[in-house]
Every structure is written in C-alpha cells, then in structure tokens.
C-alpha cells in the first residue's frame, strides 16, 4: 500500500493545475493581468494590445492546484489509492489542455 496521503496530494495538485489552467484560459475568467508598457497590474477578463494575462492564468492554476492538493490531503485516510489510475486521470486533464490550446492554434491559422 502506498503512502496514500502525500501521493493523493501530488496527483490532486496536478489535476487541479490542469483543470484550473484550462478553466481560467478557456472561460476567460477574470484574472490578474499585466500591461508591460504601463508597468501596471490590474484585474480583468479581457486584455488588449500588449497587455497579458499569462501571470494571472498561472496564478489561478496554482491556486486551483493548491486547493485540490489540500482537498486530496484531507480525504479520508482509509481510502485506497490506485496510483496508475490517479496519474491517468491527471494526464487526461493535461491532454485536454493540450488539445484545447492546439485547437485554438489551428483555428487561428
């Protein structure tokens, strides 16, 4: 039997990051944005010109990863963990992210 609690937190964090990143970018959720010309940080869902929302999307994904890792850590201890299944679930979410961003790239061509 694996040391379930920290492992659950790792897989939960991975899945949370992938889901959070996809939701923040896909749904254009309001995030922290940055204007490099004005050197201004602001809160917005839409960016224009040279403004960028990468930092905000990343921050959102990291917060989602932390929340999911914490939730997985607090999950009842007796629950068994199938590491292969958990890794598969996390990788499926990552693959969904890649497919989404690839579709956006191809749509722009």
């Amino acid at each position, binding site marked *: 039997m694996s040391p379930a609690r920290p492992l659950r937190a790792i897989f939960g964090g991975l899945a949370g990051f992938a889901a959070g990143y996809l939701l923040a970018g896909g749904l254009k959720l309001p995030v922290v944005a940055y204007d490099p010309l004005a050197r201004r940080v602001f809160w917005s869902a839409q960016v224009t010109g040279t403004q960028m929302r990468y930092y905000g999307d990343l921050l959102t994904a990291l917060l989602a990863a932390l929340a999911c890792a914490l939730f997985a850590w607090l999950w009842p201890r007796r629950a068994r963990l199938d590491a292969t299944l958990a890794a598969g679930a996390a990788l499926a979410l990552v693959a969904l992210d890649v497919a989404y*961003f690839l579709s956006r790239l191809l749509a722009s061509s």
Partner: protein
Amino acid sequence: MIAAVLLERHARALLLVHAVLGFAAVFSATHLAAYALLALRGKGASGLRRFSWIAPLLVAPQFALGLALYPAYRVHVRAADFDRNAPFVAQLFDFKEHLAFLGLILVLGAALLSRFTLREPNDTGLRPALAALSCSGAVLLWAVALLGLYVTARHPLGSP
C-alpha cells in the same frame, strides 16, 4: 517612443541564458524520464535519485526566466513584428507557453513522485505512474524547446 519594458536592456543576454538553461532543462527532464522507465524494471535507482532533484532545479528557473522575459517579447517581438507580419508564429509562441506551464508541472510532479518510488522500493504500483508523468513532461518540454527555437529563429528578442 516605447516605454522601458521590464528587463528589455538585458533581453539578449538573458535570452542566451534562457537557451542554455533550456537545453539543460530538457535533457535533465529526458534523463528523469529515462530513469523512470528503467525503474519499471527495478533498475537505475541512483540515476532516478540524482535527476529527481536536478530536473526540477533546472526546469523551474528556466520557466521563471521565460516568464520574466515575456513582457519584453510581447512588446518588442510580438507587437512590433509577429502581430503584423506573422500572426501564426505569435499563436505558436502562445501555444509553446501553455505547453511549458503543463510540462513544468508534470516534471515537478514526477520529481516528487520519484522520491516516494525510491522510498518504497517494494511498492511497484508507483512506477508506471512515475514513468507516465515523467515521459509526458519530457515530451512537452521537447516540444517547447523546438517551438522556442523556431520562434527565436524568426525574430530573436533583442534584435531590431
């Protein structure tokens, strides 16, 4: 007149550091994946231990440097050139950034998981998960490196 953008004066030097660190990060992630595959057969424990800290130690600062350089790229390369002359390359760079985020998190996850794999040598259930995470992370980082090289060849940061 364009206002001073974060790190723009040192952009070319930092881009070189970014490139060198990038190769080191990709190769270390590849080594981590190779040792994770060896671990499936119960081999390569010392290499796995070594690259479980070398890979994140190289990938994380490489990623941070990329994030720090991004504003200068956005203004001096993307807005000044790609958005007008090569919009697909601009989108390609954005795609590369997304892959980098995902690759980073997979390599960090694989590095953490490898510590548990080494601590529990009799628990063979962790090894396929480790191999899957580390190989996926390495593949994503290779894609990031190749796309980065292509975009840089089109218009390097720090050149007019």
